[in-house]
C-alpha cells in the first residue's frame, strides 16, 4: 500500500497551536488575490514533515502561496503559507508547514480558530504587468521572495486548489488533544492567470521545513477569488490512517 508520513505530532504537542473549541465561525473573504507557486522538492528533504496518518504525494511537491485578503473580520491582511502536497486517504491535500500573516490580529485568529502554524511578519503582495510578486520578512530577515513570471490569462476552471490540513490541539471528547484539522475553503473565480514560478529567496528553516530544497518548478497561478475560511468539518486522528481515524464534526456548509 502507499507510503505513509512518519511525523508523530503527539510527540511535541506543546509546539502546536491550540484551539479553544472546534466551533470556529466561518470567515467570508471576498476579492482575495492569491498567488500560488507549485514546486517539486526532493523526496528525501521532506522526510519527517508529514503526519503518520497521511500519504506523501509522489513526486514530492510544495505549495507556496501569498494571498492578499482585502476584507476580513480582522481587517485587510496578507497571508503567506507553505504547504506540503500529500494525500488524506484518497484525497489530495496540502499539509500546512508554516505561515506568516501581516497583522498580529490575523496571526492570532488564524492560529486560534483553525490551528494554522502562523506567526506575524511582513507579507507583501505586489502586482506588476510582467509579474506578481510575494515577499515575506520575519524578524528583519527575508524568508521568501517569489514571483509568478509572465502571467497569462486562463479560465478559473483550469485552476484547482486543494484543501488544507493543519496540525493543532483541540478539545474533543472532553479532552484537548493533538489532531489533524481539515480546512477546505471554497473559491469563486473572477480572474485567473498562469505563469512560471520563480523563487529567489526561500529560508526553509523559517517555514518549519529545514531540509526542504526547491527543485523543479511546476506552475504558478494568480487568481482573484471570493473565498472563505469555513467552519471545521473534519478532524483526523494523527496516528491512524485517515480512513480509520476521520471524525465528521458537522455535516456541511449549510449550518454556517
Amino acid at each position, binding site marked *: 500500500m502507499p507510503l505513509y508520513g512518519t511525523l508523530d505530532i503527539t510527540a511535541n504537542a506543546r509546539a502546536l497551536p491550540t484551539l479553544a473549541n472546534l466551533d470556529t465561525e466561518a470567515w467570508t473573504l471576498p476579492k482575495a488575490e492569491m498567488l500560488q507557486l507549485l514546486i517539486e522538492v526532493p523526496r528525501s528533504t521532506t522526510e519527517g514533515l508529514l503526519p503518520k496518518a497521511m500519504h506523501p504525494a509522489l513526486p514530492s*511537491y510544495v505549495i507556496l502561496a501569498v494571498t492578499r485578503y482585502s476584507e476580513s473580520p480582522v481587517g485587510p491582511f496578507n497571508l503567506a503559507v507553505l504547504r506540503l502536497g500529500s494525500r488524506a486517504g484518497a484525497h489530495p491535500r496540502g499539509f500546512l508547514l508554516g505561515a506568516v500573516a501581516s497583522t498580529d490580529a490575523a496571526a492570532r485568529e488564524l492560529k486560534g480558530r483553525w490551528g494554522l502554524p502562523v506567526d506575524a511578519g511582513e507579507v507583501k503582495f505586489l502586482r506588476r504587468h510582467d509579474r506578481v510578486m510575494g515577499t515575506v520578512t520575519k524578524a528583519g530577515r527575508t524568508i521568501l521572495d517569489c514571483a509568478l513570471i509572465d502571467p497569462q490569462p486562463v479560465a478559473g476552471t483550469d485552476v484547482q486548489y486543494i484543501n488544507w490540513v493543519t496540525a493543532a490541539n483541540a478539545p474533543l471528547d472532553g479532552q484537548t488533544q493533538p489532531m489533524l484539522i481539515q480546512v477546505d475553503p471554497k473559491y469563486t473565480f473572477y480572474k485567473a492567470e498562469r505563469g512560471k514560478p520563480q523563487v529567489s529567496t526561500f529560508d526553509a528553516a523559517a517555514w518549519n521545513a529545514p531540509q526542504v530544497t526547491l527543485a523543479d518548478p511546476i506552475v504558478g497561478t494568480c487568481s482573484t477569488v471570493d473565498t472563505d475560511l469555513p467552519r471545521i468539518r473534519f478532524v483526523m486522528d494523527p496516528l491512524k490512517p485517515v480512513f480509520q481515524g476521520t471524525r465528521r464534526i458537522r455535516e456541511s456548509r449549510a449550518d454556517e
Partner: protein
Amino acid sequence: MKFGLFYEISIPRPWTPEKERTVYNNCLEQVKLADELGFDHVWAVEHHFLEEYSHCSAPELFLTACAMVTKNIQVGHGIVVCVPEFNHPIKIAEKTATLDILSGGRLHVGTGRSATWTELGGFRANPDITKKSWDEFVRCLPKMWMQETFSYQGEFWSMPERTILPKPYQKPHPPMWVAVTSPGTEIDAADRGLGSLGLSFAGFDEQEKKIKEYRRRIKSCEPVGAFVNEQVATTNFLFCHEDEKTGVEMGKRLGNTFNYLATQLISTREVFSSPSYQSLGLLPALRRAATGPDASEQQTEGMAYGDPARIIRAVKKWESLGVDCINFILNANEVVPQDQVMASLRLFAKEVMPVFAKGPAAKVAAE
C-alpha cells in the same frame, strides 16, 4: 462479446528483484492460460514512475513475451503515449510493426497522451499540448506503416523522406484505438475512426451515453487509418468463484486496492492548471468508489465479480449497452493469490464465456 485481460502490472512494496520477476511471471502465466481458454485480447499499459500502481513502463517487451508464449490471443498496446518526450513516432511505428510481425499479426495499437503529472512532469512534457501531439501522431502512424517512404513536417515533429522498416504483418495495418478516460475523448475516437478503449469504471448510465454518442459520430468519421475500427471496450475487475459471497468479497478487495492506489496518483489537473486537462479523468469516480458513502453500491454496479451467474448478469448488461469487449484487471498489488487468479480465469471460461460465444460453443452453452 469479446473478453480480454488488462495489465497495469501492480507491484507492492518492498520491491525486490524476485518480487518484480514473480509478478511479471504471474502475468505471463495468466496470459498463457487465457490464450488456452479462448480469451481474445491481452492489453498492457504504458506507465512510468507510478509506484506500486503500475510497473509496466516497457509494455512492448511484456507484450512480445506474451506473444511468444501464446498462439491466438491478440496483443494490445494499451496505450502508447503519443507525446514526443515519451516516444518518438518513428520508434512507435518501428516497434509496433516488429511486434505485429513477431506476434503473427495479432497486434492492436492503443494511443493516448498520459493523465498524470508524475509522468508528464517526469518527461518534462508540456501538458498544454498533449492532445495536439496525440492528434499528429495518430494521423502519421498509419502512413508510416503503409507508405513505402514517408516524410513529415509537423508542429511537434518532423523527418525527411525515409523508408520506415519493418512494415506491420497485418495489412493494411493493425487496428487502432484511443484510451478514453476524460469525458469527450470518445468523440475524439469516433471522429477519427478509432476504437474506444474505455479505461474508466463509470456506471451503466454514463457508459450508455458515451457509447451512443460514439456510435452516432463514427458513422460520419474521417478515419486516420485505412479503415474504421468501430469497437467499444471497457475495463472491469474479474474474480469468479463458485461461491457468490467469496467472489464478491475478493472482487471488492481487488477493486478497492486498485482504486486506492489510483487515487494516490497526481493527476495533471491537481498541480498544473491547463485547459488541456480540465477533467480529472477517472480519479473522482475512483475516489468515490474507494471512500464515498455509496462506495459499496458504486463498486458493485456492473463489476465482474461473484459467482458465474452474477457475472453473467453484469456482462449481459454491458452487452445490452453496446459494449463489444470487456478487458479485465485480475490483480492489484498481488492481493489475489496467483492460484486463485488462475482458478477464477478457468471458472469464467467454463461457465461465463460460452454464454457469450458465437458458433458451436454458444450452442453447447445454450443446451
